[in-house]
């Protein structure tokens, strides 16, 4: 038992930056996210024996944190928080030292991500950013793998549209050159 707690504890500390990033993008506010991360760590330590060695620790932690967040939202009914623009910019904010042009592009993508419906944003974060497999993401979210795929496809269509991501010309040009 102490082994499980120790193991989870060590991984937990190393994993804090990722956990916090996921929390910030879930709730759109650093303050709420930090409380959430702390609560998730407490929960993880308390149920350390339930973590199955050999399974992905990150997926397990994301699930714990997300469940806590859903509980909180249910309890406080603060869904509205996420639509608050000042809160939302928290995701993109706090790296003003970057050169202006780059920031412009990145912020557009960040805003587009923040604007996604919750169910699309969380699946995008788990698969594209945290690099979970579809199966692992389905386990975290407690939905069928087909739902993961349809939400993820919609998330990326919306993101591409909102942020003006068009790889079309360059990509097809490259392929054409190769072909000819």
């Amino acid at each position, binding site marked *: 038992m102490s082994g499980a*707690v120790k193991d989870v504890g060590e991984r937990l*500390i190393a994993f804090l930056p990722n956990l916090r990033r996921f929390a910030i993008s879930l709730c759109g506010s650093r303050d709420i996210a930090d409380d959430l991360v702390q609560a998730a760590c407490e929960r993880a330590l308390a149920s350390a024996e339930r973590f199955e060695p050999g399974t992905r620790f990150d997926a397990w932690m994301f699930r714990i944190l997300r469940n806590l967040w859903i509980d909180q939202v249910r309890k406080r009914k603060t869904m509205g928080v996420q639509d608050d623009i000042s809160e939302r910019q928290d995701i993109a904010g706090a790296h003003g030292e970057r050169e202006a042009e780059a920031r412009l592009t*990145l912020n557009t993508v960040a805003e587009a991500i923040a604007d996604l419906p919750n169910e699309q944003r969380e699946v995008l974060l788990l698969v594209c950013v945290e690099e979970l497999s579809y199966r692992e993401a389905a386990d975290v979210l407690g939905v069928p793998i087909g739902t993961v795929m349809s939400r993820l496809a919609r998330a990326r269509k919306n993101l591409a549209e909102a942020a003006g991501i*068009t790889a079309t010309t360059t990509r097809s040009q490259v392929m*054409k050159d190769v072909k000819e």
Partner: protein
Amino acid sequence: MTKTDFSDEILMRYADGELDADTSAALERAMELDDELVSRVALFIETRAAAQTTMKPLLDEPLPAELSAAVEKMVKEKTQGASEASVLPFPPRAANNRRANRWLAPIAASLVVVVAGIGGYWLRGGGEAVLDGGLHVAGISGSALDDALATVATGEERQLPDSNQRFRAIATFRDNAQALCREFEVDSADRSTVVSVACRTGAEWRVTFAVVAPGVSGGYAPASSTETLDAYLMAIDAGPPLEAAEEAQVLSHLRESTPR
């Protein structure tokens, strides 16, 4: 093969490396002849890359010092608690030395159920639970009690805000599941005293034991009512009371780690 043969989902799975080898090969062959198909696949590759690039700075951000400190402390305490538990599988039972009567255990077992039911209502319920003698137990607001449990040191008393009740901390100990528990008494205006135990479950206090003792003027519940408490403490395998310094440390950590 035409482009309509490949759904967005298949293209996305290809971009994410989740497509089986045969379909992937077929898709790659089709892409050689179909620019639009290529750009559809590229969309999924580009959005993945864009999301990663955008979220990267959040990962590089330094962690708030309070957050890492709180988690490190939590981990440390938890691992220490666990190793102590494995070294001493049968911690000495004695939250205080008043009790040793083993024959009380069966009584205690039945009591736990009754009092835990009342207690659960007490802390969270906003209404008033009227126990016999007209004692208004629920008159104590949850937050006032929470606050008192997290701040008042053993042996000290405090007037609960917005009430005529006095809170007195008797002892702090851990139960058999290593949960932090506090034994305390609350004196009411009508001179009756509630003898209670609250234990920490998750982020909140839960009153697991409460018994009303007939009042005596100087505070402090009479010995007869504490026999019931003793039996209860024995039933939950209460550990020895924490020393003042240890208690202060645990309570201060509790206050720091409790959001708001």
